[in-house]
């Protein structure tokens, strides 16, 4: 449905459609010459595989990061899942259902990647449910209108892809391979989100207002998805330097945020939507878009649990898990019985 003269399907709309993605996917295996030591592999930009020895802190860092990513996919099903029964056309309903289903698949795929590091999914889900592991704060904002499904695809999937394309080169093999596959699907999501807004912004007055309102509400939280700034008052020292040294992280938060702004502002112009930042202007000298200050107090507040939907997201997730406990127990009991009866028949 891009048969119009303004959206060119060959024009990259997100980072997974740029050469950066193809480059990030290229991996030259030189393990034979490099040898198997962790430091040598990292120094030579080679992949660490599950069977390799690795420092415990590297393992723990990856478990935390991959789990948080998996949890984000699972919690991220809710804001849009909320619209499946209300999608305004059957075509949109089908696309949205498939998208939310994809996110479930991403969650499963990432939990499997985390399991290669020696932890199981049930344990990780417990940590999500009891709040000891986090998910992306963006999903603590509500989806108030249909246009929010468009804004999430365009901005939230778009920002996620910007973060994830460099992870296709992550030093940990299973995570890097998961990212290659996931980025491709996120790219469809981002296009679909853009297309929702494209149609709305060319629709009735009420539809245009809906689209603008969604862009107003999602723009700043999307910029926060890249994490706190690398320097200045709001910076959190965190794990950035170590993750860079280990080849887990490749670009700073601010670099990725700038790339996202640079890619997205022209798209907003094509959509005819105004981004809610009076300081947004092209800086000829820098060759980048300047943008205004981000409200980091809001970021930290939502991260600490005081966002509009934190409590709701976790309680829905817990309820589904608890209400399903008897089903999972039945499946285990059935499997155990049938293993036994197969053994006694053998």
């Amino acid at each position, binding site marked *: 449905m891009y048969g119009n003269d303004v959206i060119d399907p060959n024009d990259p709309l997100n980072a997974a459609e740029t050469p950066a993605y193809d480059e990030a996917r290229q991996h030259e295996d030189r393990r034979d010459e490099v040898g198997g030591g962790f430091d040598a592999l990292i120094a030579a930009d080679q992949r660490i595989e599950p069977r390799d020895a690795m420092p415990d802190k590297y393992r723990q860092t990856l478990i935390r990061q991959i789990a948080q990513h998996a949890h984000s996919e699972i919690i991220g099903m809710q804001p849009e899942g909320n619209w499946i029964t209300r999608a305004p056309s059957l075509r949109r309903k089908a696309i949205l259902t498939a998208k939310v289903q994809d996110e479930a698949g991403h969650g499963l795929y990432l939990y499997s990647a985390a399991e290669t590091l020696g932890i199981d999914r049930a344990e990780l889900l417990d940590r999500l449910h009891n709040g000891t592991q986090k998910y992306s704060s963006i999903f603590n904002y509500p989806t108030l209108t249909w246009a929010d499904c468009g804004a999430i695809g365009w901005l939230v999937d778009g920002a996620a892809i910007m973060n994830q394309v460099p992870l296709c080169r992550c030093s940990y093999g299973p995570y890097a391979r998961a990212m290659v596959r996931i980025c491709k699907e996120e790219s469809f999501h981002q296009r679909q989100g853009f297309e929702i807004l494209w149609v709305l912004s060319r629709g*009735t007055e009420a539809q245009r207002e809906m689209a603008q309102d969604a862009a107003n509400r999602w723009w700043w939280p999307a910029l926060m998805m890249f994490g706190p700034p690398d320097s200045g008052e709001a910076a959190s020292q965190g794990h950035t330097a170590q993750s860079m040294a280990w080849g887990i992280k490749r670009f700073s938060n601010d670099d990725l945020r700038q790339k996202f702004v640079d890619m997205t502002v022209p798209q907003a112009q094509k959509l005819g939507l105004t981004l809610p930042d009076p300081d947004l202007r092209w800086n000829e000298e820098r060759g980048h878009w300047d943008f205004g200050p981000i409200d980091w107090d809001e970021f930290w507040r939502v991260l600490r649990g005081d966002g509009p939907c934190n409590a709701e997201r976790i309680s829905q997730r817990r309820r589904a898990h608890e209400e*399903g406990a008897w089903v999972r127990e039945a499946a285990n009991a059935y499997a155990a019985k049938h293993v036994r009866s197969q053994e006694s028949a053998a």
Partner: protein
Amino acid sequence: MTAGSAPSPEAGSAAYVLAVADDAMVYAQRLGEWLTNAPQIEEDMALANVSLDLLGQARALYARVGELDGSGRGEDDYAMFRDERQWRNVHLVEQERGDFAREMARMLWFASYQHELYAAQLASSDPVVAGVAGKAAKEVRYHLDHARHWVLRLGDGTDESHRRMQAALEWAAPYVDELFDDHAAAVTAVEAGLVARLPSELREAAQGRVEAVVSEATLTMPDPPTWRSRGGRDGIHSRPMGYLLAELQHISRSHPGATW
């Protein structure tokens, strides 16, 4: 389709295809409610798959209804702009989402019914109906298999799951007869060669499938229920239907004439 006059063959065919489409549409809508609510993530995905298959069947069939009834209406005209009395689905698919055992009881019956139904449409005189049936027959085999596996696991799992699965079969029982009623549009459709068999002629095979699963799952078939649902094919629905439509339709109806 004026009341009182005999319907033309095309209008009769349209009414039949509409009933098949409405069953699929309404069940797709109910299954969509499971996403983010399923007992495990694999099941979120599986139920979404079934929902998408049924939605695809409904969309293809609605397009055909718009040709057969001469109105030229599209899929969203049927899904979003008809009132409750104009819907032709059975009551089974409109019932509110219950526990997972109820969903598997409903899916087992519905997929068993659809399995026979689409088989009887493979040689349909209508090429679109035959084409949809060819694709849907494969999809329904998966739905049936999925429901069967869960009914086995729940029936022969723990005491609690056995009790819940048995209760779910009892819950579904009053809605089963309606699937196999020979409603007027189905009679016309058989005469027109649109489908090879009447609903009542699908029952033996469909019920045989259900009974085989139930007994393998160490469950028992419920006693004949004391009441049965009626009226879906004439647009007489049960209480949950109006709420389902309110949710399905409200955005489109709030913006008449808009495209999405």
